[in-house]
């Protein structure tokens, strides 16, 4: 089975051969010498071409992974050919609606809302202030656009990734 793996802006085409009980990984026609062992829950030790890596690996489902490799974070997508085909199809269908959702980057308290519905905002402009760990953190707009809807009120306690507001992106 062939796989395409996307990581850090790169794509690797790897092939898996099943020689029970061993699994061979083939890269550019040559077997990759590796040894992968679980140390604790999501922590693994990978020895690859003799090099040793401590790998923190969490599956986000559907072949998506969050990885930390020797203190560097990565996100990874593993896809076989069928999945790749399906996904590219789906992506084409649901092409950007032009709405940017602003999610809470951390749990906290909405201490101030600095914009109103329908207000025009620029990228980098402050939208609201979330207080957490006794610090006020300003959430800024990542895009130019207009405020479509505000989903929270001042004083609300919010969870991480709560939907704070939506912005209609300017094209």
């Amino acid at each position: 089975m062939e796989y395409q793996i996307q990581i850090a802006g790169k794509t690797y085409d790897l092939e898996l051969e099943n020689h029970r009980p061993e699994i061979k990984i083939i890269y550019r026609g040559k077997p990759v010498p590796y040894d992968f062992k679980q140390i604790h829950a999501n922590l693994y030790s990978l020895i690859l071409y003799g090099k040793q890596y401590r790998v923190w690996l969490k599956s986000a489902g559907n072949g998506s992974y969050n990885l930390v490799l020797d203190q560097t974070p990565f996100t990874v997508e593993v896809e076989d050919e069928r999945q790749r085909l399906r996904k590219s199809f789906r992506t084409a269908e649901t092409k950007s609606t032009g709405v940017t959702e602003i999610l809470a980057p951390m749990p906290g308290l909405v201490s101030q809302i600095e914009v109103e519905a329908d207000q025009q905002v620029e990228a980098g402009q402050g939208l609201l202030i979330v207080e957490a760990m006794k610090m006020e953190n300003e959430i800024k707009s990542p895009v130019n656009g207009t405020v479509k809807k505000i989903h929270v009120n001042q004083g609300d306690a919010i969870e991480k990734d709560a939907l704070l507001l939506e912005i209609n992106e300017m094209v």
Partner: protein
Amino acid sequence: MFKKILIANRGEIAVRIIRACHEMGIEAVAIYSEPDRKSLHVQLADEAYLIGPAPALESYLNQEKIIAVIKQCGAEAVHPGYGFLAENSRFAQKLHEHGIKFIGPPAAAIELMGDKMAARKLAGQQKVPTIPGTLEPISSVPEAQKIADEIGYPVLLKAAAGGGGKGMRLIHESSEMEKSFRAAQNEARAAFGDDRVYLEKYLLQPRHIEFQILADKFGNAIHLWERECSIQRRHQKLVEESPSVLLSPELREEMGNAAVRLTRTSGYQNAGTIEFLVDAQLNYYFLEMNTRLQVEHPVTEWVTGLDLVKQQFFIAAGERLSLRQEDVRPNGHALECRVYAEDSGSNFLPSTGEIAYLQEPGGIGVRCDSGIQMGSIVYPYYDSLLAKLIVWAGSRREAIDRMQRALREYLVFGVETTIPFFIRLLENDDFRSGNISTHFLAEHKGLAENGTGNNKSFAGAVSSLIHFNGQKPGSVLHANEGDGSTDSKWKIIGRKEMLV
């Protein structure tokens, strides 16, 4: 000496104080809020009492409840740590009235030196230079604008009752004053219940250098030399070291003497810190006094060989300082990195969650002061400091190399931390050559971003693929698969492939 001490704090500093208690045969009493039941400081204590729900006002700041617990468990003294009630003169006074020792300065000294403006006045009287600015609180935006025009922009708005960067705002021009003035007042009121703010000239390229002080009730005061804490984000320290590479022996001695002078004249007792800013021309200015144990006290402990918390106990118990100034001979170089639950890649936003995996570094010259263990939950209610990593070595260069090594060993998964940021910082040439100031981060914005780690991406791809296929055994490389020469076949392949 006390037989039982209550620690009115949580996290790493509570653990730090418990350790000092245990080394002196003193029983350590912890208090905890509801979400802190399983915290490390509770587990290491001899006794532990629930003090209230999560919000600090209802638990760690609840003076009535804390005093009730002290009465209940029979503690003779209270160590407040830093933050919470550490610089609250009313709490110190209340304990005094109940016949309980407050392990810190007398209430009057907290009030005098804790008021930034009063302290500035005292410094002026003692001929210790202060930063140009106001000596009285500013009541209105126009007044602030007028004064700022006089001393010249940029200026800093600061909370009179402040500390830790709270209620502080930098203002570059008159038009920014209104918004910043309000924000500073609000933050000051929320943090300290006191919204007085004042103005100071904002120095260019200043370095933050502070002197550790010890003073007993017999009027003896000494300093334990300096710490440089110029690496900051949001006016809060990230990295501290001792000694500072900036100071000449003469300047060091002059500043140390100034610090002791201020301490003596303020009637101060116990441990404290006199903070200075030093500009590029080596002018120093008194900044403020911290009337408590500092987060960064371990770097002083390591170069002087003293246990500052034990020294606090001795002083609070009425003992005489056992050291004279000439007995304090610093040795080597110590460095501290504060491990915060923050994502440096996202402007140091707080990160919360469960510590899913933890492996703290060890070995030669490494000290870890930690408030967490595997399974600990990091809540949004309190300060995001998880642990402090401190190293010592014979030289600054070796200390930096050792810190790098320790940071690379340090595994914390489940929340984002400042560890990856420190690894990048310690590789920076300006940092390594000591070319730093409190504006360092603003001037090296790239440091806050997570690297791409391109040379590890193939290892990441392989790891994910193996996991995706259910972690089946790999084709293990045996040492004898090579042909014994340095040119073994797979190795050459390997090297090439890894460079794609």
